[in-house]
């Protein structure tokens, strides 16, 4: 079988069950593809021995019958997930050399289902960024280029390595995490599917924490069906994460029926931003038309507090980050600065954190410290949490009125050039999250689906937002959109 690495999870599952290929063959093909793709800097730690061992075990399980859907699937794992005895450093210098003695719940569930770990994937440091440019490993590079130049583009962030690896067929699928758009924005920038589940659907245990009330792991895949398959293996209650939901994990793939007749799809008027590129506007209108043609009812809706989502997010996320990242103190793991004669414990903390954290992480930790400090806690942090309540209420109101899903653009633009934002104000970079961040604040499931190409041949994505815990219904609508959009383009291989 040729082009093994181009298989979808669904395709590979069927091929494995029919004994047309083996997990070892799939895994070896992916490892070769990764070797070839150094220029994309997507994989930052390779685990070929683990991969081959897992693949052999998977093949035995498949041969014995009754293997679960993810059995034998070679995956990439975002560096944010702790993986036992394998470097797991959240793309930060401060976790240099850290090899966890434990496995994150999500990755453990994937291995229990028979999946294969190819290695760890590049990302923005501590998942703080929208371009993968804050990584200690250097930039991950988008396999897509504009038609008219060779300028290297960002794969988006923070799950930039995951997106590049899936888009370039280095792995069949990858894990991502999403705090403000970190699965959906890179998926849109690379022409793949990215699903952020409902908050609480996947355990956060063993995932390096950024903003605990917003963080959620999810699948990054080639198709919507694959996202359904992979989510099924990642999701589920975990006593080790007190916010993980004690709900039965439904068969998400079975929810994909292709029938969305009578569904009400909301188009929120507040997402029509000033200066939105005409291409994005058209993509959005086309997406709505596709869903209408499939029998859905398109309804104009209002989510009045949308405008305040970004500023609320950039109070809440840094506040939680400043608390979560307090643990990096040079005592228990990772980097410790060399101390001068007479330096005490405070100098050790301050020097370690100055050396260990990159500029964006330092900035966010300090902003978070400020908004939580005495005298400002109410003015910033509590106010932001109240605005968050209002943002969630906006969604509850439209869902109560019968809206089944909400259609929006995934990003305000196609992928931009690496380095292009270097001189920009940090706030300019934050605007990348404008369409995605509301979903995290409200704890909802959201999915980015590739829907077209811009004038320069770069992929553009649409986002669907669903009701809490109804990922199955959301995936069904997303699959209809995916099929109607008929996005089949792949980046032409230059690497």
């Amino acid at each position: 079988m040729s082009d093994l690495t181009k298989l979808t999870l669904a395709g590979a599952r069927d091929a494995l069950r029919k004994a047309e290929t083996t997990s070892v063959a799939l895994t070896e093909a992916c490892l070769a593809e990764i070797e070839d793709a150094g220029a994309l800097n997507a994989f930052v730690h390779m685990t070929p021995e683990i991969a081959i061992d897992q693949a052999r075990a998977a093949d035995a399980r498949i041969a014995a019958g009754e293997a679960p859907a993810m059995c034998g699937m070679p995956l990439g794992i975002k560096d944010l997930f702790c993986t036992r005895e394998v470097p797991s450093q959240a793309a930060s210098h401060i976790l240099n050399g850290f090899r966890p003695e434990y496995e994150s719940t999500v990755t453990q569930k994937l291995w229990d289902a028979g999946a294969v770990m190819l290695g760890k994937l590049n990302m923005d440091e501590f998942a703080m960024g929208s371009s993968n440019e804050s990584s200690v490993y250097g930039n991950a590079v988008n396999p897509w280029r504009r038609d008219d130049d060779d300028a290297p583009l960002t794969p988006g962030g923070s799950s930039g390595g995951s997106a590049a690896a899936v888009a370039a067929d280095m792995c069949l699928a990858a894990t991502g995490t999403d705090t403000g758009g970190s699965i959906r924005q890179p998926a849109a920038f690379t022409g793949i599917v990215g699903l952020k589940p409902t908050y609480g659907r996947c355990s956060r245990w063993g995932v390096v924490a950024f903003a605990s009330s917003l963080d959620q792991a999810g699948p990054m895949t080639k198709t919507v069906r694959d996202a359904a398959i992979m989510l099924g293996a990642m999701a589920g209650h975990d006593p080790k994460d007190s916010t993980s939901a004690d709900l039965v994990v439904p068969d998400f793939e079975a929810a994909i029926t292709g029938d969305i007749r009578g569904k009400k799809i909301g188009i929120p008027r507040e997402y029509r931003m000033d200066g939105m590129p005409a291409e994005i506007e058209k993509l959005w209108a086309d997406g709505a038309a596709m869903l209408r043609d499939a029998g859905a009812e398109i309804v104009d809706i209002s989510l009045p507090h949308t405008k305040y989502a970004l500023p609320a997010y950039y109070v809440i996320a840094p506040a939680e980050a400043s608390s979560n990242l307090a643990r990096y103190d040079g005592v228990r793991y990772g980097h410790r600065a060399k101390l001068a004669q007479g330096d005490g414990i405070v100098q050790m903390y301050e020097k370690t954190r100055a050396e260990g954290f990159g500029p964006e992480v330092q900035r966010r930790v300090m902003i978070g410290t400020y908004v939580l400090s005495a005298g400002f806690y109410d003015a910033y942090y509590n106010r932001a949490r109240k605005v968050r309540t209002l943002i969630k209420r906006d969604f509850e109101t439209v869902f109560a009125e019968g809206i089944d899903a909400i259609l929006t653009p995934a990003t305000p633009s196609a992928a931009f050039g690496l380095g292009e934002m270097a001189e920009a104000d940090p706030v300019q970079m934050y605007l990348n999250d404008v369409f995605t961040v509301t979903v995290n604040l409200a704890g909802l499931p959201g999915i980015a689906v590739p829907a077209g190409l811009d004038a320069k041949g770069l992929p553009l994505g649409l986002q669907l937002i669903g009701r809490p815990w109804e990922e199955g219904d959301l995936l069904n609508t997303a699959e209809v959109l995916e099929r109607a959009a008929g996005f089949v383009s792949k980046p032409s291989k230059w690497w």
Partner: protein
Amino acid sequence: MSIDIDTARRVAHLARIAVQEDDLPELARELSGILTFMEQLNEVDVEGVEPMTSVTPMRLKRREDIVTDGGMQGKILSNAPDAREGFFAVPKVVE
């Protein structure tokens, strides 16, 4: 609200991040820019609105009050930059 150099120095210390004196003006400028962006939140009427504590309404579970783990000193110390005699080692804290 803008952040002056003294405030930037104080925030950096609270965050336990060493910032060179020369870098404080730039830091103050950046933090001020971000705070200005956040100031939009003042436009929202939040009178009588509860601050969100949990995005999905759920009761936090209580586990049984029993020992479930332990006896793994070696694993816990295995990543320490400096571990001695079964302890994490740090610079002298008490004179």
